[in-house]
Structure formats: C-alpha cells, structure tokens
C-alpha cells in the first residue's frame, strides 16, 4: 500500500431512479501508483465512469473511501480540500461539451489558476502558454473560442486545462472515444509523452481494448459495478482468465482479415441484465458459457491467480484462452 498515490477502498456509488436504486459501483478496491497508468475497462453500465467521477468527488460515495497520498479526501473540506483537488484533475470525454463555449482557449486554461488565486496576471499567462505548448498547441490559439477548433484540438485544450495546476494524477474519462482513430493516436501518444515527461499517474477509463493494450501499465475489467479481473497489461492480454475478459477480447475487432475470418462464435451470450436487479452471486453468470449452479450462490471475490487477480469461482477450471 505504501507508494500508492491513489488508494480506493470499498468504493460504492449508488443513484436513485424512478424505478429504484442502481448500484453503479459495488465495493471496488483499486490502487494507482505514482507514474503508473491504470486502465478501467468495461462496457456501458459497468460503473467505470461513475468510479472515475467519485474519485474526484464529482459524484458522492455511498460507502468507502478514497485516499490520495495517504489522506482521505472525505475528511477534508474548504480550503484544504481545494488544495488537495489541485493534485487530482480530470480530462473529459466529449470535446464538444467539455469546454465552456463562452470562454476563449486562453481563458479556459487559465481558469483553474484563477480559481485557486495562483500567480499574477502575467505569471498566469506565461503558465497558460507553456501548458498549451506542452500539449502541442501554440499561443495563437489563446483568443479562439472552442467552436473554432477541431475535436482533437479541443481535447488538447481539455488536457491543458487539467495539467495547468501541475497535478500528480489525471482521471481520464474516455478522452479519445469521441475522436477519429487517426486523431486518437495523436492524443494517446501525447498522453504517453506527458506521463514520461511529467511523471503523471493516470486512471484511464476506456472501453476500447486496443487503446488499453498500448497505453496502460495495469488493467482492471469491470462488469456491473464490480472488478472481475485486474493485473499487469501484458499478462491480462496474453492470458485472460475471467470469462468476461475473454469475451471482451474475443469480440474486440482486429484490423486483419485472416485473424477476423478465423474467429469463432462470440463468447458473451445475450444481453446485459437489468442494472436494477443484477443476477445473484456472480453478476456475469447469465451470459457466461462456463456458468454452473454454484455461480448463483456466492459472489466471487478477487483472488490471486498468477500475476493477475480474478473474481471467478471457476477460474481454475476454465481452459486457457488466447484472444487471437
């Protein structure tokens, strides 16, 4: 636990709908070390975005705690919370709506500095220009409104805004999902370069496994609010042990005709269950090709299996699987 920059313990996030209470995040533990990129992967409804936001206290935690550099953020308030907030920043998904349409690029990137009362006008401007340089945008963008920028450029502004306070950790909520694939690569490479130059840690929420494969150091796979498998990225992709991870990898498209043609029937059957009434025991059992009666009776805990952790009662019985 020492050396963990971010330490999330038993995090639970719920929200009320007209039809009942949905448990978006169900008792999740995770850690991110300094300079490390942890990817949170899953499909819609798995709770990865809610978890990312809860870490930044943008959504309330029902139970559990978030420790940043050893300090529980929930115990802080007022000025000390604002201080702590500076070290944890977020990059959002939608380049269209994540930038204030009535401000210019310069004002958007300056905003965090102003909010925290940092520096003089001149010092702030210098910092803004330096940060825009970091993300590959020149000072000529200072006076432009977001509407005048392309999706990729807007996303760079979003990253600049997150970096201007010199944070230690970035929570990235699907930052490239709304971009064309050739632009995605630019932004992802930028994030990698920034991590190397600034020693940033990242909690990277994504649904695209290809991106995760080449970006993350460690991966955690989520399904209906729970982490079902987690570990170093090379191991997880070489030998996934949870049936859901296997299904995800079997389904992820590969731009290779021979590989795609050789693929067999998809591994996750049927539909996502109603999040208001998830299946008892293991949430994935209704779609799992390996399910047995025991899976309905007990919720599997994460157990060590070689280099990874798996939450599957039958993980030892399931044959080894290689995605391609």
């Amino acid at each position, binding site marked *: 636990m020492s050396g963990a920059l971010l330490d999330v313990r038993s995090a639970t996030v719920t929200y009320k709908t007209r039809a009942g209470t949905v448990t978006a995040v169900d008792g999740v533990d995770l850690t991110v070390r300094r300079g490390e990129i942890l990817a949170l992967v899953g499909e819609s409804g798995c709770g990865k975005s809610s978890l990312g936001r809860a870490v930044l206290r*943008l959504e309330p935690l029902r139970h559990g705690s978030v420790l940043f550099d050893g300090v529980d953020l929930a115990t802080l308030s007022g000025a000390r919370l604002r201080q702590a*907030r500076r070290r944890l*920043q977020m990059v959002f*998904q939608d380049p269209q709506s994540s930038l204030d349409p009535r401000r210019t690029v310069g004002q958007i990137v300056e*905003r*965090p500095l102003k*909010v925290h009362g940092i520096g003089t006008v001149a010092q702030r401007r210098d910092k803004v220009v330096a940060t825009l340089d970091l993300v590959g945008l020149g000072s000529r963008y200072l006076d432009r*409104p977001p509407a005048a920028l392309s999706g990729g450029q807007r996303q760079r502004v*979003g990253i600049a805004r997150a970096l201007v*306070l010199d944070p230690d950790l970035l929570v990235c909520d699907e930052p490239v999902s709304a971009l064309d694939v050739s632009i995605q690569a630019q932004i992802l490479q930028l994030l990698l370069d920034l991590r190397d130059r600034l020693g940033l840690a990242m909690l990277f929420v994504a649904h695209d496994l290809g991106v995760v494969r080449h970006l993350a150091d460690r991966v955690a796979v989520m399904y209906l609010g729970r982490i079902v498998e987690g570990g170093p990225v090379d191991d997880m992709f070489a030998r996934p042990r949870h049936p859901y991870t296997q299904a995800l990898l079997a389904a992820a498209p590969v731009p290779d005709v021979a590989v795609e043609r050789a693929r067999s029937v998809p591994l996750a059957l049927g539909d996502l269950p109603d999040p208001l009434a998830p299946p008892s025991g293991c949430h994935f059992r209704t779609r799992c090709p390996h399910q047995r009666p025991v899976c309905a009776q007990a919720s599997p805990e994460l157990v060590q299996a070689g280099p990874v952790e798996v939450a599957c009662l039958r993980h030892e019985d399931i044959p080894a699987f290689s995605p391609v």
Partner: protein
Amino acid sequence: MSRSATASRIRPHSAAQWVGVSIIAAWILLAVVAPLISSDPLAQTTSDRLQAPSGAHLFGTDQLGRDVFSRVLHGARATLPIGVCIVLLATLVGVPAGALAGFVRGWVDEVVMRLADLLFALPALVLALAIAAALGPSVSSAVIAIAAVMWPRYARLTRGQVLTLRQREFVLADRATGASPAQVLWQTVLPNAAPVVSLVAVLDLGTATLAGATLSFLGLGVQPPTPEWGAMVSSAVQTPEAWWTSLFPGFALVSFVIAINLYGQVFDRKELGR
C-alpha cells in the same frame, strides 16, 4: 468574452434590426437634445389652446396651450427610462433568485418557485395598479410595481437555463478544477445563460415601457404636468376632435415599442440553438 465577440453579438444583422436600432437611437438622441430644439413643454398659452399643427407649433397645441412637439420630445425623457428601469430592476431581482433556485435546489428552489407561482396567479396589471396605488402615485412606485410583477418571469427563465447547464460537462469540469459552487454558478453557468435571458429582457423593454405608459395613462405613474407619452394620450382622450393631441404621443410610443421588438431579435441567434 472577448470584446469583439460581444460587439458582434449585439450588432444588427438584418434590415429589420437596423431599422429597429435606428429608431431607438433616434429617440434617445431626441430625448437628449429635446431642450435644445424645442420650447418649454410646460409653458401654457391659453390663447393658443388646441391649435392644429402649423408652422409655429409643429404638432399643434394641447388643451392648456402647451406645444405638443416639445411635449412629445420631452416626454421621451420620461417614458424611455421608465421601461429600462423596470427591466433592470426585474432582472436584478429575478435572475439571481432563479439562478440560486436552479443551482442550489432544495428549499431555496421551493421558496422562490412558490413565490413566483403566486405572482403568476394574479392578474399582472391589476396587481401593479394595487401596488402603485398603495405606494402613492409617482414614477418610482410605478417602476417598483411593474418590476414586482415581472421578476418571476426572469426567475423561471434563469432557473430553467441553469438546470440544463449544470449538467453539461464544462460545468462539471469547472467543479473538478476546484472552483467553489459560487464561482461555478456566477462565473461559468450564468454567463452561458445570459444570451437567452438578455433576449427576453430586451424584448420586454417594449412591454415594460408600455406598462409604464399605461400606469401613467391611469394616473398612477408620471404625474402632471410632466410630459409623458401615456399620460398625454390619457388627457387627449377628452378632446378627440383634436387628433394631434393623441396621435403624436401615441405614435411615439408605438414606434418605440415596435423598434424594440425589431432590434431585440438580434439576440435570438445560434446561441439559442445551442
């Protein structure tokens, strides 16, 4: 907002809007130079009562022998500011109330909205008359009365805008950078609500001016002998054959209100489509 962007937002972009802003500008100009180009509006010459328009009196004279032309010009100095003051007061009260209601929610929302509902339920003009009468007939009581009836409109409008905006990602981003709720509301959310609210406010200038003139028409706003368009029409009712006593002030009022409506459309641009 950069200054050039703001300027482009208020510049007219159609012929109708240019006509509107020209008429408004003309009336403002005339109101300012009124004393320089016309005679004393209060000077009575009983020998020249109810004269039709002529070389000496461009718009004729009224039943007390006062020059209608100068009274119309000086009347602008009363009528125009009333409308502006009313809208200013109503937005000053309504916008913050609505913003807080929509952002903070909870009991603040309940209180503001129920108050607004109450005021909506009562007939506006009747209520304004009652307030003005209770405060005693004067310009300020007319302004307060009408503003009291108008602020719920802005409260509701602002609240609606704030409710939508607070879900947008850039507002979330603002919170994530560590801005306090107050900073988020006043510095990020409200400026984005401004386009819609300003459109309504500008168009309401016409309605407010008319309401002020109505109260004066009924004797509750501007008091005689100060010239005011609504009051002038009111006293002209008694002398219908002297058409110039009602036509010119009436036309002045109508032209101003129409001009407001024509120009006001300038705010109704792509902003509203966002």
